[in-house]
Each structure stands twice: as structure tokens, then as C-alpha cells.
């Protein structure tokens, strides 16, 4: 069939002539008119043309918008993490260094942890110099506490506006009051679910936790020479004077549980114990209140004690500003 490759073989003049003899039929005039009218209508319909062009660009624009949104959200999350963690910089061993020996093969995870540590360091540098200076000793060595008057004298210093100020602090934390009010019942409850760590990391239960004495031991060792158990270090004097009624009651309960806390050095001031009885959030609220009342020194000292106790505690930016006061700006 080689001849079929010849294009002439695909043409037959006799067949073509016969076909052309069938005539040159054309569409009816009515159809001509309908088609031409439709073509003119389409040209006149300018907005439809614009709409079609919009539809043509709809998909690329949608994809670009999704990409931009994803990137901005990712950046925002990464930029907000230091804000959450910078209020109380972690003084303990760097996270990346902890992760390396445990999981050296998991390079991406280690890289992420290193990035987190770097962000934390950056945020730490953004803090005022005095705050950094106070944060450093807590990371390296416990601060010796000075002797102070009895914390019992502080109870009379509470004023009537205390509850109102506390409510303001709660508002600043954007935390529902009901949750804060419910804290006394859950004050000594175990640590919260891990899912909550992303926003606010709750520390382990304060006083009643069996693991606590080990963490508090260095504090006690540092303060032991000068602080008898019945007295209060000067660093917490103001706090003791400002301690709410429940703090005093908690101190009493803590004394009754001395069998559990006998591993804690007796040099830890009772006011510190009162603070320790508080939940971290209530402690921070107290620091914020001191800051607002202009008792900066007491606030700083209480904050230092808080940092020693909860070195990895993470708080929201609003609470951080309230706790750090002018030093945060």
C-alpha cells in the first residue's frame, strides 16, 4: 500500500466533482440574523466581558492570596512566640542543648529548637538592661535573700481596692475571670494538658508537689545563713505586707505541712512561702499590683523570686507588660 502515502491518492477529482454537484447550500437567513444579532449583543455586553476577565484571573489571584496568607500567618506565629516567652526568660539549660544529646539524628527538630532558643535570646536582649541584669543571676546562681520583718505585719497593708486591681490584671491577661476565680480549687492541681503550652505554660503544682523541694533547695541554701524560718527576707517584705488573706491562710497551711516541706531550707522566708502558695498567675497579679502602686523594688524582688521558682514560665504579652512595668517599654 505504498501508493497510499502519495497525497494524490487521497484526492479523487471525480468524487470531488460529484460532491460539489450537490450544491452550495447556505443557512437560512433567519439563522444568519440570529447569529449576527447574538454577536452584536455579546459586543454590547461590556460588563460581561469584564466579568469574564475577572473570572480568568480568579484562580491565580486566589492561589496568590492563599500563599500570602499562609506566609504571613507563619511569620506572625514565629514573631509572636518570643513575646510570649520573653517575660520570664528561661534561665535553665538551653533547649537545643537539651535536645542534641537526646535526639541528634532528628536534625530538623533540633534546628527548630535552636531557632526557638535564638528567638528567646533575641527577646531577652530586647528587655531593659535592669531586667536582664535581674534575670541573669536567677539563671546562674540563687540570690541571697536579706532578712526582713515578719510577714504577718503585711496583712494590715491590704487596701480595699485590691480586688478591683486584681480584676484589672485579669482583664489585661484576657483571661476569663471565672477561670481565675476557680483557681483556688485547682491551685495545687497537676500541670495542665500539653495542648495549653502553646499559649501559656502552666508550671507544676507549687507547694505540695513532691518534686518541688529539689528545685527550691538552692534557694534555701543561699538564704540559710541569715533567714530564720519565722522571719521574712527583705526581698519579700512588701509582698508580705500586700499578701491577701488567702495567702496568709495558705502560709498557715504550709506550716502544717512541714513534714512535706522539711526538705526546703528553713531560711526561705514565710512571705516567699506565701507567694509560693499562690498560683503563678496570682503571683504575677500581685507583682503587677505592686508595680502599679509604685513599689518597684518590691515588685522587682518578687519577680526575681518568681523567676527562680518558675524559670520557664510563659505569659501573655499584656501580663508581661503589667509585671515588668516601665522596664518593659
Amino acid at each position, binding site marked *: 500500500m505504498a501508493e*497510499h502515502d502519495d*497525497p494524490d*491518492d*487521497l*484526492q*479523487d477529482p*471525480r*468524487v*470531488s466533482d*460529484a*460532491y*460539489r*454537484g*450537490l450544491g*452550495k*447550500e*447556505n*443557512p*437560512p437567513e433567519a*439563522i*444568519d440574523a*440570529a*447569529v*449576527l444579532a*447574538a*454577536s*452584536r449583543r*455579546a*459586543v454590547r455586553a*461590556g460588563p460581561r*466581558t469584564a466579568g*469574564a*476577565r475577572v473570572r*480568568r484571573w480568579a484562580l491565580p489571584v486566589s492561589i496568590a492570596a492563599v500563599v500570602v496568607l499562609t506566609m504571613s500567618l507563619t511569620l506572625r506565629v514565629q514573631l509572636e512566640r518570643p513575646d510570649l516567652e520573653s517575660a520570664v526568660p528561661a534561665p535553665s539549660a538551653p533547649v537545643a542543648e537539651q535536645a542534641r544529646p537526646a535526639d541528634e539524628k532528628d536534625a530538623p527538630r533540633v534546628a527548630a529548637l535552636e531557632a526557638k532558643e535564638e528567638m528567646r535570646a533575641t527577646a531577652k536582649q530586647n528587655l531593659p538592661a535592669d531586667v536582664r541584669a535581674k534575670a541573669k543571676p536567677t539563671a546562674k546562681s540563687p540570690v541571697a535573700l536579706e532578712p526582713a520583718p515578719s510577714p504577718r505585719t503585711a496583712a494590715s497593708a491590704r487596701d480595699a481596692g485590691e480586688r478591683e486591681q486584681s480584676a484589672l490584671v485579669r482583664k489585661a491577661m484576657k483571661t476569663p475571670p471565672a477561670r481565675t476565680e476557680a483557681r483556688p480549687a485547682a491551685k495545687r492541681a497537676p500541670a495542665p494538658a500539653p495542648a495549653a503550652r502553646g499559649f501559656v505554660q502552666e508550671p507544676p503544682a507549687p507547694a505540695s508537689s513532691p518534686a518541688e523541694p529539689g528545685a527550691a533547695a538552692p534557694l534555701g541554701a543561699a538564704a540559710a545563713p541569715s533567714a530564720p524560718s519565722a522571719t521574712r527576707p527583705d526581698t519579700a517584705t512588701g509582698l508580705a505586707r500586700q499578701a491577701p488573706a488567702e495567702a496568709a491562710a495558705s502560709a498557715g497551711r504550709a506550716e502544717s505541712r512541714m513534714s512535706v516541706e522539711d526538705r526546703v531550707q528553713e531560711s526561705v522566708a514565710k512571705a516567699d512561702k506565701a507567694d509560693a502558695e499562690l498560683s503563678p498567675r496570682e503571683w504575677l497579679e500581685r507583682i503587677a499590683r505592686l508595680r502599679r502602686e509604685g513599689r518597684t523594688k518590691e515588685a522587682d524582688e518578687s519577680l526575681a523570686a518568681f523567676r527562680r521558682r518558675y524559670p520557664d514560665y510563659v505569659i501573655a504579652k499584656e501580663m508581661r507588660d503589667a509585671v515588668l512595668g516601665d522596664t518593659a517599654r
Partner: protein
Amino acid sequence: MEAADEQLMIAYRDGEAAAFETLYARHKGPLFRFVLRGVKERGQAEELFHDVWLRVIEARERYTPSARFTTWLYTIAHNRLVDHWRRRGLALTSLDTRDDPDDPPFEPAAAPQEEPQRRAELNEDLRRIKDAIEQLPPAQREVFLLREESGLSLPEIAEVAGIDVEAAKSRLRYALAKLREALDDG
């Protein structure tokens, strides 16, 4: 010098209604005959022909002169005819293998519906070629009509029909052989 089809279509796409009128006048006859002889019934042919041009109008914003306008126009017509044939239970494919010139003549699924008035106007040769075209398998008939009416080359016909060039050649050969045989029988 007449404007090329592609320039006219671009002008119409950009809002020049007169360009479409020129295009329509240029292509309406061949396209109508391609459709009319493809579906055999005049009413259906008119409906399909109208629909093809409406699709051209609707698709004007997507038109890009990457190929000949004629190829684009007849591709739209081909797709519309495929829809038509599918609704009638006919297919364009799997006919080439059994349509050897030595095989018995193809029997259409449906008997051709003659129009007595037109039929009387044709002389015997024309009636025979007309009957032979109607009895061609749709795939072969389409290739033959595209060759006769559109003036497209075989590669362009293959593009319109969605087949390769060799398949287009094969279909055209079978179609010519059957039409030649019909004329010789007279």
C-alpha cells in the same frame, strides 16, 4: 487585501462587531454544509450550526491565534457533532478496523431520512453520491466533509478530529474508496 480570519477574530474579541460579520459571511456556507451533510437532517443541522456560532461568540475571549481560525471553528463544530452523535448512540471510533474496502458496505444504524423535495432535484449521480456519503461511517464522513468543505490540510483535519494524521489518512482513503465505488456502480 482581505484581513486574515485570525485578525478578524481578534478584532471581534476586542469589541468590533463588524469583524464578526465578515468572518461569518466567509465561513457560514462551508460550515453549514459540513454540518448538514454530517447529520443528514436539515432541522438538526440548522440547530447545530446556530449552536456552533453561539459557542464561537461565547468563547471569543478565550480565543488566541495559536492556530488557524478555521481549525478552531471546525474543532468547535466537531465537538458539537460528537455530542450529537453520542446522544444518538453513535460513535466516531473503532470503525476504521472493520472498514476495509474489501468488507461489505457499511449499514448505518438508522436509515437515512430523505427529503423528497431535494431528492427529486438531484440527478442520479448526485443521488448516488449523496446516498453514499450518508452511508459512510460518521468518522469517515467527517474527514471527507472536512476535506471538501473546510479546505484544511490533513494534519489540520487530524487536529480537528482529535486523531493522528495516519488515522485521518486512513479514514479519508476508506471514504473515497466507498464513494468511488458508489459512483462506479451507476
